């Protein structure tokens, strides 16, 4: 409503309680629009698409507001709208900066939880890379030693992306680190499954692959709906397993089993999350398992770092500039001969003796 002289206004307005009781003669209401939202260059009128508030003025004086009064109020209204809009933009910017800072902290914590600078172990070499598609992601890998001499390797993918998924990965990592205390992996998987199913409101589940490498080459593993790692052995690539397995946190009655294989010297395992094989180009074609196998074979004789870079490069080339739609994680493990390690130790001892 914009009205200057109430005596000329609609009867409903003239007889309104607030007008009669306060003996009002003039009233002006000027809507304050956000003109900073932009003008349509083709349009003759500005795009009044956001109401920020109103400027209201009334008077009991006998003389109604003049045209000049109205011009002054219009100018004041435009000024007020600008100030309101700037204040609101400032507030939004502060909020954005605060969220960015919190995300940055979450990313730092997440990165700190992922093993940094993976070392070579006496009986195997390992390298890993994780590239989230948002600030933080739901993929996760870990490598840690157990008191019995075996080394645990884990790769997991929490459903969804972003902060929600990242929170769950931190929880998974804490739970799984309990295996250093000697808890059986299958029991940990079952416990985690029950824990998440009991808290279905969390709305997340995960795929996981957990392996234990013994220095003698025995490789025990438990899987939970995770894509099979690829095994490169004597010039050929195969999948470590076929068939399904339950995810963690989706089906209450899920059960998990441990399997094992014996690794041979120079066997290379490639662990990955579905973000690799489901990477999509601009036409929504999937990178797929076959392309991953081809890239694996192509770089299989290279060092693990080169292998990892080669496969990552193949995925990026396939994407062809398309935006990454899921977190991508790769972990490559190459088993060594135990004898090599003994031989290396003997050589070191011999060299030391000769020096003396």
């Amino acid at each position, binding site marked *: 409503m914009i009205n200057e002289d109430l005596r000329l206004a609609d009867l409903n307005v003239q007889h309104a309680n607030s007008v009669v009781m306060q003996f009002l003669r003039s009233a002006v209401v000027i809507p304050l629009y956000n003109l900073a939202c932009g003008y349509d260059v083709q349009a003759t009128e500005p795009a009044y698409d956001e109401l920020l508030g109103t400027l209201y003025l009334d008077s009991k004086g006998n003389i109604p507001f003049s045209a000049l009064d109205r011009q002054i109020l219009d100018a004041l209204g435009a000024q007020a709208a600008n100030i309101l809009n700037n204040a609101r933009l400032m507030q939004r910017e502060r909020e954005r900066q605060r969220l960015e800072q919190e995300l940055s902290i979450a990313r730092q914590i997440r990165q700190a939880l992922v093993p940094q600078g993976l070392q070579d172990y006496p009986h195997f070499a390992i390298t890993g890379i994780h590239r989230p598609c948002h600030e933080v992601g739901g993929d996760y890998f870990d490598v840690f030693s157990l008191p019995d001499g075996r080394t645990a390797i884990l790769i997991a*993918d929490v*459903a*969804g*992306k972003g902060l929600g998924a990242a929170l769950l990965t931190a929880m998974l990592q804490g739970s799984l680190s309990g295996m250093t205390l000697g808890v059986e992996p299958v029991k940990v998987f079952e416990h985690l499954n029950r824990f998440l199913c009991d808290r*279905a409101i969390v*709305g997340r*589940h995960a*795929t996981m692959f957990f392996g234990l490498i013994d220095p003698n080459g025995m490789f025990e593993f438990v899987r939970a*709906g995770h*894509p099979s790692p690829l095994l490169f052995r004597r010039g050929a690539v195969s999948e470590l397993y076929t*068939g*399904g*397995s*339950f*995810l963690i946190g*989706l*089906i*209450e*009655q*899920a059960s998990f089993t441990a399997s094992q294989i014996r690794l041979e010297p120079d066997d290379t395992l490639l662990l990955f999350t*579905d973000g690799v094989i*489901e990477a999509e180009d601009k036409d929504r074609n999937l990178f797929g398992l076959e392309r991953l196998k081809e890239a694996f074979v192509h770089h299989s004789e290279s060092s693990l770092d080169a292998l990892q870079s080669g496969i990552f490069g193949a995925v990026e080339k396939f994407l062809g500039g398309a935006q990454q739609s899921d977190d991508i994680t790769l972990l490559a493990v190459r088993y060594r001969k135990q004898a090599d390690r003994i031989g290396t130790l003997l050589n070191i001892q011999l060299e030391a003796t000769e020096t003396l």
Partner: protein
Amino acid sequence: MTISTEPMEADITRVFLDGRLDIEGAAAIDLKMNVLAGSAKFLLIDLQKVSFIGSMGLRSIVIPAQNLRRRGEKVALFGPVLMVEEVLKASNIDQVIPIFHELDAAVAALR
């Protein structure tokens, strides 16, 4: 992702899903799927036109199905394309919700 339903014989509700069951697709159907899980007796989820299923998409199917099963009702999946069926089987979903490629067989299993 779109969702629509059609009543069939013997209290069976056929749910047609159409599109990509990724994060966005799952968000688009979750509410309707949960409402159906709370009201339907037998649910036949038609996946013939689902071209992709991601991790969150699995949840959109499994959680309502489990709610129905808790009430003693039945759910079946019908006609997934190869990619979708592979994902369902890789997650052992087929062990808790049967998958059919023949409509008659699916209906018979739900009766």
